[in-house]
């Protein structure tokens, strides 16, 4: 089962490698990983998606929490949450029409006479579907950010 884990960690050198290292060391998978500083510059927020049953995910969150640089950890799947991913697609301009772009809720973020860059935001499943649809139009390059997530109740991931 896919799980989304969010955590806050000290924004300092070496912290990220401890988190990533833990996954390889303990044999857990990372499917996607996003990390960026928060509005508090001493903290970074990291969101990762991983595969595993209840027990494995519990172990992962406990082991992450044990890392000295990790301030707080949350398994977002424990309550309702919103998951979104950003996708950028580069195409030959003549391979797709404006109507087609609109139909799949794409946004044009760059275009010149040859190339067009499209932006999509949505749940990963939706992006999977768009990738499939675009496939026959032979996109030049597709880049996905990996999932970011936020819980949709009043609880917040803060220190």
């Amino acid at each position, binding site marked *: 089962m896919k799980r989304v884990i969010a955590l806050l960690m000290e924004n300092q*050198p070496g912290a990220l490698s401890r988190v990533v290292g833990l996954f390889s060391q303990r044999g857990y998978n990372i499917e996607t990983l996003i990390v960026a500083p928060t509005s508090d510059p001493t903290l970074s927020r990291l969101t990762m998606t991983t595969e595993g049953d209840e027990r494995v995910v519990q*172990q992962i969150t*406990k082991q992450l*929490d*044990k890392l*000295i640089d990790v*301030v707080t950890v949350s398994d977002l799947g424990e309550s309702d949450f919103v998951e979104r991913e950003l996708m950028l697609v580069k195409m030959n301009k003549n391979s797709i029409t404006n109507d087609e772009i609109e139909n799949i809720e794409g946004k044009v973020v760059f275009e010149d006479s040859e190339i067009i860059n499209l932006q999509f935001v949505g749940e990963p499943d939706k992006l999977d579907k768009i990738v499939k649809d675009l496939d026959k139009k032979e996109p030049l390059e597709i880049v996905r950010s990996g999932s970011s997530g936020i819980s949709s109740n009043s609880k917040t991931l803060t*220190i």
Partner: protein
Amino acid sequence: MSKKQTSGADALIQSLHKEGVELVFGYPGGAALHIYDAIFNQSDVDHILVRHEQGAVHAADGYARSTGKPGVALVTSGPGATNAITGLATAYMDSTPIVVISGQVKSELIGTDSFQETDMIGVSRPIVKHSFLVQKAEDIPEIVKKAFYIATTGRPGPVVIDVPKDFTDPNHTFEFNYPDEINLRSYKPAKAGDPKQIKQAVELIVKAKKPVIYSGGGVIQSDASSELTKLAKLLQFPVTNTLMGLGAFPGTDPQFLGMLGMHGTYEANMAMHNADLIIAVGARFDDRITNDPKQFALEAKKIHIDVDPASLSKIIHADVPVVGSAKDCLSALIAELNKEKLDTSKLQPWLKQVSDWRNEHGLNHSMLEKVSENGKILPQQVIQSLYKETKGEAFITSDVGQHQMFAAQYYFFDKPRQWINSGGLGTMGFGLPSAMGVQFAFPEDTVACVTGEGSIQMCIQELSTCLQYGLPIKIININNAALGMVRQWQDMQYGGRHSSSTYEDSLPDFAALAESYGHVGMKVTKFEELESAMKECISLKDKLVFLDIDVDPNEHVYPMLEAGNAMDYMHLSKDKKTW
């Protein structure tokens, strides 16, 4: 009055002094030379020169395990740092509080593949509790404070401080201030257990008819032996200890079942397998205990007390998980139980059963009474003789292999911190250097290193350190001229094919070797000589004695769990098993 200006190197040593450090085990080298100069210029912190960095870390570890105080090792960059890795991994697996300070190349050279550069933070990352790369000299006092706090609290563990050479430069000075307190927002170790969980534990305890207490190294780490003993006495429950937990409950107490697990006693493993309640304290249900976790103690409810929440339900589901230090949780549990009316009479059939198991297949602790059938000395007899001559009061360190298991089985440890061995990592070479750490901490006590001709050769260079500092360690070399545990497995599982487990007459004359290092060497080959030689060895109070004893090379360690089964599947001898 303005405070004295110090360099980073002076600040480092003064910080160690502020932490109460008296001894540092280490080995100098280029990147650490400013630090070594700072050591030379003061007298608060002594430095012990080892012969290999692995020895330094094991010695610091032995010091920590025997005293409960953090041990400190100092090494240089590059090979100094990588040589410390086995010691760090050993301390990590057994959760011992040590701080390893490694010199690093100048900060401007980091990442350039400069001479003796190794990414120590990267290399040590999976085997430390935490690590620090110093970013400026002024940070050193605070980093040392944090390092000791992290190493010694919660589930203890090793911490690395990597110090680039320019931050210890004597030409850069600053005002030294050592912080009184440290606040780490991301690190809050658990203390007392949740009262609700304690109450639930009590409910299970009062109902139990076939209980057993299974305790591990966590009880020793948190100095909770007296609480454990009190609990066991209050409840009259039998107690078994892990390899790491020996000494937490008196080994000579009739309630004690001996060690459990892979080479645990028959009665301990049978009690675990048939129990209806297991109280696990400071133990982690590792694979050397549970055998097949799917078949582990299926009838038993499990109360699991551990300071590390990640240990709970990691391998075996805990019906009642209690997070907190063994000391605080056991105290709370005892207080709660004191409110109950306890009926120990319903335990009688169970205690009788346990006692029957012991009578049936328990270990024979009287093997000195007669010579073995083939006339050769048995390794068990060596341990029994050592126990007799030291009156059970020595610190015993061990290496790894058959001799380690025999020592764990046949020496009764009545006190915590008396038994020092590498349980988790299983590090050959640990015995002698860890004994140095113990002997420095307890100069008046007998410290014996039980080892074998394989393990001792992995850190034998420390014999020279022992002479330099006059350490009268007793090295009990159980010499079967083979890598005994490897050979045992080859006998049992590989059709007796002894692949690379013997030395083809290439072993040194250990007694002569010890003599050449300036120590006393003794050789024993006959059973009749064993006890008198042991007596003489132990009585030479001021000398290191290397007692090399030829034992029966064909002896195996039993009981031994049969892999892939429950805990009641045991080999009891070469031709007897429980199934």
